[in-house]
């Protein structure tokens, strides 16, 4: 092991293994996770060449092979618990994106949730056995966020009891679904249902797109890959164009809405239920934000402990770059953020399971809050993680730009989560709509519950900005609980300001939509402040659950850093609302720097606790043993340009030119 890293690990003030247990939810779970990971890591069948040197087509092949192998092995080992499947899958795919992901998630999930008993009995065994491979085709070339705007049509023909599917325009071509281009032979297609001459809105249909056996596209189907992307090289995101393509009536998913054989449309009981799938995916993205940022932090912090540069003290050897305050200031707040998001992700998962438990028993009362919460937190965490990954990459200087660092790959794989499954700004505005509604409720004298209950403090005539601003300044910057309060006041102040601006616009404008649009910048800010509060609150709440004193101490410092750094980046909000004074803001800046120094000796141990195996990290710079330079050289030798000592371009282009001159 590199001596710098060894020293760092020996000097840590806590046992990183114990923190790993906290992240995993217990020591037993850590050891079970490692057992499962070992099944993959020790299996030669899962080995493959470094993806960085492969063409897109080769990467796709690797991913398909591994996905298929994964399914077989999961069955072989009898792994069925969702968390265990997740662990197995993460380590198995590593840095690769699985073309079968949509099959296992959205395709089967949707049939399970929206299919009738008959439909589930027919399709699920086929899907589980991979006799059919499916994807979920919602987004169209011209329409994403606005579902009502989708143009694909499914027209019911009672004569044959079939739906006729059509892509009437270029913009209506299904575009982006993963696994659609080359992998899938079926797709769940979302289309506007027409029956008895009326449009009944968007419904889901199971559409076969390729011939079983030959895998050729079926007549009436045009399907293909949408071409190269920023990342996701292994994924065949596809397009699908349908021309008078007929499917039997039974292929419409009819658990909720139905079309009778004669074409009579039967309305669903509640349309809220179909939100369930989206909510589930969004809660997963929050967890992904945490994991992706953690990986980036692991790489950047280990590298910064190994890399030496310039002088801190004249005449002394070059120090580790992690000793520079500016480097700490770039990386440690991100490290704190990664931990914060881990706890938020865990909370979201618990909440989702708890509330969906209620849903299956018919209690939908918490669905609006869940929907609002997952939307905003999805946007908040993915935006911040997205920017954070790039900061980690740039903190690694030139070497961060090489694909051997693994950082470009983490970034390009993660960044689409800002736009997929709900574009972030749209998500923030959904949360804002909920917040404004709660605010209105409070204004009219009703109380609200859950994460927004702080709005109750604004009840009665206290809804005056001056009143909020006039609050006595009692924030203790060393106390996480006090900082939670500060964030709470900031959120309530911004929600209130946005709600009032909205009201002002409503009084001036004819259209509600216009007024909403003219307030949307304020509304997004309010949502962000709300989410920020939730994150600080959940991080703080987690501290008391940590039993080991040393671990709790370092996590308390990280939590403080998260909260104080957030304040230092938004001092305007805290100053304007009178939550903090100028002098306190100065103290906040200073305290952030003090915390950097406290975290410095523990930084490497803190990323070790994430416990990413080298193969999962996919980075030469982030190797656990820190032997980066020799391994960069080994890696570079494999570059495609190095296949021959003299590149063929020399003979084809250079030599003829030199001959002529």
């Amino acid at each position: 092991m590199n001596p710098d890293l060894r020293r760092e690990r020996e000097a840590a003030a806590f046992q990183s293994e114990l923190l790993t247990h906290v992240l995993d939810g217990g020591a037993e779970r850590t050891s079970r996770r490692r057992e499962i990971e070992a099944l993959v890591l020790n299996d030669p069948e899962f080995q493959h060449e470094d993806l960085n040197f492969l063409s897109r087509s080769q990467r796709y092949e690797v991913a398909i092979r591994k996905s298929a192998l994964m399914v077989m092995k999961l069955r072989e080992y009898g792994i069925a618990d969702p968390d265990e499947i997740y662990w197995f899958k993460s380590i198995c795919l590593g840095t690769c994106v699985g073309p079968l992901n949509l099959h296992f998630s959205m395709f089967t999930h949707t049939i399970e949730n929206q299919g009738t008993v008959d439909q589930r009995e027919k399709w699920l065994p086929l899907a589980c056995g991979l006799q059919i491979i499916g994807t979920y085709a919602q987004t169209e070339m011209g329409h994403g966020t606005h579902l009502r705007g989708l143009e694909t049509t499914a027209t019911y023909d009672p004569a044959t009891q079939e739906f006729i599917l059509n892509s009437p325009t270029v913009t209506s071509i299904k575009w982006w679904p993963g696994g659609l281009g080359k992998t899938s032979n079926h797709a769940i297609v979302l289309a506007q249902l027409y029956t008895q001459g009326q449009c009944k809105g968007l419904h889901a249909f199971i559409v076969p797109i390729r011939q079983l056996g030959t895998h050729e596209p079926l007549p009436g189907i045009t399907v293909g890959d949408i071409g190269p992307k920023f990342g996701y090289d292994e994924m065949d995101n596809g397009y699908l164009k349908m021309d008078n393509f007929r499917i039997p009536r039974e292929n419409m998913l009819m658990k909720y809405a139905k079309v009778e054989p004669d074409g009579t449309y039967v309305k669903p009981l509640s349309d809220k239920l179909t939100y369930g799938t989206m909510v589930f995916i969004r809660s997963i993205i929050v967890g992904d934000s945490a994991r992706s940022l953690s990986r980036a932090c692991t790489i950047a912090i280990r590298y910064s402990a190994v890399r030496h540069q310039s002088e801190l003290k004249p005449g002394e050897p070059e120090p580790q770059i992690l000793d520079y305050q500016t480097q700490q200031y770039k990386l440690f707040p991100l490290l704190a953020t990664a931990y914060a998001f881990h706890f938020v992700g865990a909370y979201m998962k618990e909440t989702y399971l708890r509330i969906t438990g209620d849903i299956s028993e018919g209690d939908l009362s918490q669905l609006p809050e869940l929907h609002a919460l997952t939307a905003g937190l999805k946007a908040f965490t993915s935006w911040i993680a997205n920017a954070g990954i790039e900061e980690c990459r740039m903190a690694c200087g030139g070497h961060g730009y090489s694909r051997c660092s693994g950082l470009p790959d983490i970034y390009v794989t993660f960044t689409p989560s800002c736009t997929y499954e709900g574009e972030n700004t749209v998500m923030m505005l959904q949360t804002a709509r909920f917040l404004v509604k709660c605010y209105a409720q409070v204004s009219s004298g009703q109380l609200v519950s859950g994460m927004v209950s702080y709005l109750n403090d604004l009840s009665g005539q206290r809804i005056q900005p001056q009143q909020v601003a006039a609050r006595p300044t009692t924030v203790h910057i060393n106390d996480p609980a006090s900082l939670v309060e500060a964030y709470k006041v900031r959120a309530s102040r911004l929600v209130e300001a946005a709600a009032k601006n909205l009201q002002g616009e409503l009084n001036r404008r004819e259209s509600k939509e216009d007024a909403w649009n003219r307030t949307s910048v304020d509304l997004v800010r309010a949502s962000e402040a709300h989410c920020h509060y939730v994150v600080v609150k959940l991080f703080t709440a987690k501290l008391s659950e940590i039993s080991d004193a040393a671990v709790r101490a370092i996590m308390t410092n990280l939590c403080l850093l998260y909260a104080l750094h957030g304040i230092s980046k938004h001092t305007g909000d805290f100053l304007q609302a009178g939550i903090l004074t100028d002098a306190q803001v100065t103290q906040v800046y200073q305290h952030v720097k003090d915390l950097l120094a406290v975290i410095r000796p523990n930084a490497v141990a803190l990323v070790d606790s994430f416990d990413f195996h080298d193969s999962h990290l996919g980075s030469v710079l982030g190797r656990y043993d820190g032997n980066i330079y020799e391994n960069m050289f080994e890696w570079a030798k494999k570059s495609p340009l190095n296949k021959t000592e003299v590149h063929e371009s020399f003979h084809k282009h250079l030599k003829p030119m030199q001959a002529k001159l």
Partner: protein
Amino acid sequence: MAPTRYLRSSASRDVNPDLDIERKTPSFDVEKLTTILDGGAENTRVRRAVEAVIHSDPVFSREDKYFLSQNESYEAAVKKAVHLKKMMHQMKWSWAGSECKYCNRALGGEVAFTLHNIFMESILALSTDEQTAKWIPLAENYRILGSYAQTELGHGTYIRGFETTATFNISTQEFVLNTPKISAMKWWPGDLGRSATHTVVFAQLYIKGKCYGVHPFIVQIRSLHDHSPAPGVTVGDIGPKMDFNHIDNGYLLLQDVRVPRENMLSRFCEVLADGTYVKRGSEKINYFNMIIIRVKMLSNEVVPTLMKACTIAIRYSVVRRQSELMPGDQEAKILDYQTQQQKLLPVLAIAYAFHFMNEYMNELFSKGYREIKQKNFDSLPELHAFSSGLKAIVTEHSTAGVETCRKACGGHGYSLLSGLPSLYTRLAASCTYEGENTVLLLQTARFLVKCLGAARSGQPVPPSVAYLSAVNSERCLVRDKRDLLQPDVYVEAYRHVAIRVLSSAAAKLQALVQSGAEQHEAWHQCTVQLVHAAKAHCHYHVVKSFAEAVEKLGQEAGIQRIMKHLCGLFALHGIFSNTGDFLHDGYISGDQVDMMTASYLDLLAIVRKDAVPLVDAFDFTDETLNSALGSYDGHVYRRLYQWARKSPSNTKVRAGGKQTSPVCIHQGKPTLLSVLWACTM
């Protein structure tokens, strides 16, 4: 993928009506603005003539760009470079002329041998006349191909830390070059891996056991006959990167490589035959040349990239429709959403602000250059500090701006066919090359702290920091939101913050020193604050130079009006994003912040109307943009579909003429399908 052939006249184009209508009533003369941006109508004419020549030549086509492997990209870049060399010769265009700059713009910088020019420039700057006479003709005629090998695997920013050695051997009159350990390998230099035959190697010079510091040596690394590596040389490509995969950034390992004494570039120091080390002249002029590279990079590479991203994202945002703004209406253009405006229009304002900043900096450097030619080096520290900080903030904001544009295009921005990912990945490198940004900001801060001290003790200070001598104003006195749009009001606000942040950093520094900390330790403790101060200083200058440039546009009322709006948008966006800096000492009040936010949002709506003409004025050809989303005609979806269908993942066909099947994108093997089917259980 066939971007529409080069056409200037919009009349002859079939333009998407959603885009066409945006061009109907610009508030200013778009063509006139283009000529202003180009620095005169004659430049615009020359640029367009060059673009016409480049775009009509199939060798320069970039149609395949997004579908190439690393090997193919490299080969295409070599082919283009060779062809360009031939063409420039035929057209009698010079390397130093504006035509060359415009060629590069038209080609999106995707040509090989870019380091060859740096190789030549460094020889011109560092060599004696005899050395120049020997090497330059060879390089000019491509007899030799050069690179510039400074950065090592373990060392970048800190030149004194380089580990490569060049030991003088008196008996053979040679330098013996060595890479003593793996971290000393030269790593990253462009064109080094496969193309270059020669390179300038920076190495620690040793004579008779004594180290004389880092010096430049010309080293032949490949045979001029068969291009094989020279004895003792291990050279190769460093592998795939985030971008620049058409360039063979390389590594170089030297084992007892001998070069004659004459190969040390000796303009400033020479090693005599007996091993005597002689220093002569001032290296300051050389220093100036290094700074110039930075300045050129900003105006030729960084800011145009940001402008391209704005062009693509804004055009797409008036073609893309999403959701309803009015119930029952057609779906609205996404640029009509306030949140979309707030993402894109400040970035557009930043692009214009940086353009005018560059012009200002170019003037400053021309003046500096004249002085330096007369051996007056007084302005050098200022130019260095100024260009360092600006390089950092221009690259940082431009990179972030391009990414904002990409994300604002939603899912389609993630497709390479949008052109935006490549703009980002190219630009992202600029934050670390030619000086790592944090290091540069701290250099600026060091200069500022020194000047603040001088200003306070009444000594004269250079012009860019003269404002530090004035008394800082205490409060912003504005009562009406319209007054916040007065340039003198916001310029003053930025000045105030720049002084305050610098003063508090300097005070902290002084306090630490007084309490007994050593100078370097105190400095280290304050670096986060000092970076903040350097940024505030630069931000103030960008706002100020933009406001001054607007002032000078008096003869063009329409252009002046819209530029004033953009300048206000730039300034208020900066305040909106950092209200804390302005509120901190009560310079502006909470009420003023609310007014300012209202003005800021008003400006978004105003600039929205001219958004498309403002990006049209950048005058990028479709070929240069190479984007399915950003073409002049706005036929986004048609083009996206056409280009996607041409992707190799769809076009590789089987012998039978049918689409390649199952599961495998192209050369798929049926075994894969069997694997999948084998899972059936």
